[in-house]
């Protein structure tokens, strides 16, 4: 399972690109968080609960690189990327069941 934390404004881009790359299924959660920059300081105010979107994508092992590349390409702001563009985490899934079909597998 790929868990990607992206900017809320990049959500639609990432989803559209994932869909056109053939990975239509995804789950989105609204989250807040901070990174290693300890949030953003604007004036005297520190914002350390920055809203982001957590995208969960369940894929086959062989598609991992394609999905990661797509997210890296679309979630980046500017040519070099900026602090706050997010992270991608990859974790193993042992079993998958599709409820509507009642079978194991994606």
């Amino acid at each position, binding site marked *: 399972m790929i868990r990607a934390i992206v900017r809320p404004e990049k959500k639609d881009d990432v989803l559209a690109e994932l869909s056109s790359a053939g990975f239509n299924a995804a789950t989105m959660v609204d989250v807040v968080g901070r990174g290693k920059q300890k949030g953003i300081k604007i004036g005297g105010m520190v914002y350390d609960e920055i809203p982001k979107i957590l995208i969960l994508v369940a894929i086959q092992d062989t598609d991992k690189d394609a999905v990661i590349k797509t997210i890296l390409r679309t979630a980046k702001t500017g040519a070099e990327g900026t602090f706050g563009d997010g992270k991608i985490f990859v974790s193993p899934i042992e079993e998958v*069941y599709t409820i*509507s*079909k009642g079978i194991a597998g994606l």
Partner: protein
Amino acid sequence: MKEIMVVVRMKKTGATKKALVAAGVAGFTAVKVSGRGRLVTDPVQIEECKAKLLAMGMTDLGDAGDTEKLITSFLDGSRLFPRRLFTILAHDDDVPRIVEAITKANRTDYGIGDGAIFVMPILDAVRVRTGESGEAAIW
């Protein structure tokens, strides 16, 4: 130790909770999520579904084009649907039982959109109240 993540219909939250309690699993975390699943590619099925949805819409009010646009976006995968994401920690032996209970509670006749169950390994868990860890921290 396993982590079971389940995406279910909003309407099925209550049924899922009941099924979990009946299966002997009282503890879980649930969040509201939005998402989409595998695209339906069969054109016959899409047309059938579209006709059904159009018949449900109010054609005398508003713009009929808007209704059709909305229904098309339901079917072409560009729209996200609200769902509930359950996260359940379980002992290895209990996983098949829980999966079966959830499947039974959530399966509908629609044939699509009932959600998915992911079973993932968890390395450790700690109960904050007592500090016990590992299998004892689950329930």
